[in-house]
């Protein structure tokens, strides 16, 4: 008797759970089917998935909500349904959703290598019509190209970053150092610092892309932008003497103790903290770091006031010039190819990109990929200086790991760590790169 009662209870519980699971699913499909109408004025729901949770990216989250609220006010028939995830979870979920063809109508994507499989799987819609419309000439040159495959653009960038070398003015002053213009001067600066027991460069190379920045710049300055771009695209070779020389220079920097101790085992955050603590004098990083050196109240003011930046110095006899940058757009917005509300989604993306460009610098310290009118904004000097540099830029080389397809990017990153750790020779380094890029995945 007792057993039977429990059996029935258990069964009921199971059925209830199953029903609950199915129920939610039904709700979801109802919502999207009701969004299927394309007549103006009809109720439309746009699903928008992004990666700015309130806790982690408060600034961005606020702007997103602001834009969505405004948009819904201006378009009373449109409801934007948000789904927010953390960075890594976001990437994984996007993959899972794409496998079952359930991508959100609008979502966040990265450029080049990340984008490619989605485009090949015919999951993202081209947005060239937006680029020739209201957004024409609004983007900084060279930013939307990173999202283009075979002449079509598949996402609109929201962020744009270049990587300067930040330096601690107080430390430079203490040892009477000048901002280096050439690589020889740069090496002399490092030597003076390390002779005085100050770590010259903060680097957390456990994350690997951090070291990649150093190689990219040396390659750009020595071999020139074209040689590097060709090698990455597979039409050139990493065995180009200039590129091999760049790899050698990396190892000679390591040999001269230019980087903090144990950099290959430290994460970027740990490496950065050496710079923030004033233990290391220089730090090569993207402009997403700017809030830390300007507006972030959690970092002592005297430190923030002491941070300046300089451009990666030129190498004597090298082919690169000082106004060539390593950088690239960060995330962009895509519209799903299979979306039932594609037109509405595109209109929302257009609106979002425009509004984001107006608010992101002041609201979140994020530099948008759309052109910023510095005269109308009250910005810290460091931002203004960098905006001016961006306008002068002669070329921008996209971060190598973003540019390459996933498998080659992994090889590149692993080899960067090995190169810095002196586990491979510059020649092997070039060899491995050429092999991985020839494989083409």
């Amino acid at each position: 008797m007792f057993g039977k009662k429990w059996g029935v209870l258990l069964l009921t519980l199971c059925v209830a759970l199953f029903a609950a699971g199915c129920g939610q699913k039904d709700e979801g499909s109802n919502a999207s089917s009701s969004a299927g109408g394309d007549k103006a004025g009809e109720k439309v729901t746009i699903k928008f998935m992004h990666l700015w949770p309130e806790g982690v990216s408060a600034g961005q989250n606020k702007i997103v909500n602001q834009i969505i609220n405004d948009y819904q006010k201006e378009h009373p028939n449109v409801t934007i349904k948000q789904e927010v995830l953390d960075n890594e979870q976001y990437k994984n979920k996007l993959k899972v959703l794409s496998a079952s063809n359930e991508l959100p109508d609008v979502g966040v994507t990265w450029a080049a290598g990340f984008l490619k499989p989605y485009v090949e799987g015919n999951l993202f819609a081209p947005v060239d019509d937006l680029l020739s419309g209201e957004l024409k000439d609004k983007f900084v040159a060279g930013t939307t190209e990173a999202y283009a495959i075979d002449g079509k653009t598949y996402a609109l960038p929201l962020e744009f970053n270049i990587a300067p070398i930040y330096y601690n003015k107080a430390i430079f002053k203490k040892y009477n150092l000048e901002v280096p213009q050439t690589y020889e001067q740069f090496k002399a600066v490092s030597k003076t610092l390390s002779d005085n027991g100050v770590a010259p460069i903060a680097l957390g190379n456990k994350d690997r892309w951090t070291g990649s920045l150093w190689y990219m710049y040396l390659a750009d300055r020595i071999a020139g932008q074209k040689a590097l771009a060709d090698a990455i695209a597979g039409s050139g070779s990493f065995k180009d003497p200039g590129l091999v020389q760049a790899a050698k220079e990396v190892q000679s920097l390591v040999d001269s103790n230019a980087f903090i101790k144990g950099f290959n085992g430290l994460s970027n955050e740990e490496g950065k903290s050496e710079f923030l603590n004033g233990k290391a004098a220089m730090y090569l990083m993207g402009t997403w770091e700017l809030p830390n050196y300007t507006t972030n109240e959690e970092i002592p003011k005297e430190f923030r006031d002491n941070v300046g930046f300089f451009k990666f110095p030129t190498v004597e006899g090298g082919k690169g010039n000082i106004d060539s940058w390593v950088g690239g757009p960060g995330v962009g917005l895509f519209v799903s190819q299979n979306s039932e509300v594609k037109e509405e989604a595109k209109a929302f993306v257009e609106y979002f990109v425009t509004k984001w460009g107006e608010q992101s610098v002041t609201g979140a310290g994020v530099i948008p990929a759309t052109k910023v009118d510095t005269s109308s904004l009250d910005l810290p000097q460091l931002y203004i200086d960098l905006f001016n540099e961006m306008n002068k830029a002669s070329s921008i080389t996209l971060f190598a790991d973003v540019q390459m397809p996933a498998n080659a990017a992994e090889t590149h990153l692993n080899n960067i760590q090995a190169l810095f750790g002196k586990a491979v020779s510059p020649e092997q380094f070039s060899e491995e790169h050429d092999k991985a890029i020839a494989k083409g995945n």
Partner: protein
Amino acid sequence: MDKVMSNKKMIALYVLPALLLILAIVYIPIVLTAYYGLNEWNGIGRMKFVGLDNYAELLGDRTFWNSAWHSLLLAVFSCASLLVYLAIAMVLAARIKGANLFRKIYLIPMLLSSVAIAQLWLRIYHPSNGIVNSVLESLGFANPPAWLSEPKLVLFALFVPILWQYAGFYILIYYAALKNIPSSLEEAAKIDGANSWQIAWKIKLPLAMEVIKVTIVLAAVGSLKYFDLIYVMTDGGPNGSSEVMASYMYHTAFRAYDFGYGSAIGFFLLVICLVVTWIIRKLTATKDTIQYS
């Protein structure tokens, strides 16, 4: 109650939910993983059937065998450390003063989440501010190594927290097993004039043997598929010198987006674990198990 339990239909009904769950969550994914391993697939587009190509590539993949060697080393160290845990458990079970307190202290690492342990040990190993290097420096070592970035040291530096993490778990198991041995046996041995060594060796060890066998399997298989601390602390680096099989699988599938190859590694890992378990069972098999009498 008895009536219900003898009804075949009723039994099936009771077993069904758990059976469905375990099929859906464990066995079907295993079969699917084996199948994905036969394909070339980047996780998004179409799968391309390539037969045994992935497995063939795996057999010649130096990085994989390197990571397999690291996993094996970890398994050997884990099994060897069981001896230490057994010795500690014997001391604790011998009703020494404060045994209760020690037992709790040993158990604490097990209560911490892996990520917390990783963060803790990252700080301990920090090349310039870490405790280890501060102590070494104050002892006069001029240039202590950066533990997590030296390719030769990193693996062993990682073994320390991994072994430490599970110490409490095994000590607890052994402690319980030893406590289960009737004290009358020990008393009888004492009356017969056996010393503590003989009691430990001839009475306690054989009677705890069944438990020891289980822990050897647990330690070996747990090490072979170990992932968490390594993922957080070094991510397999620098340059693969702390890569283990599970982290290599993760990197191929989720970083290089090579799900076919990643699945092949995953399935191979399962096979290795099964084989190792079988070998250990064979090696430790005894004809008659000793019973408390």
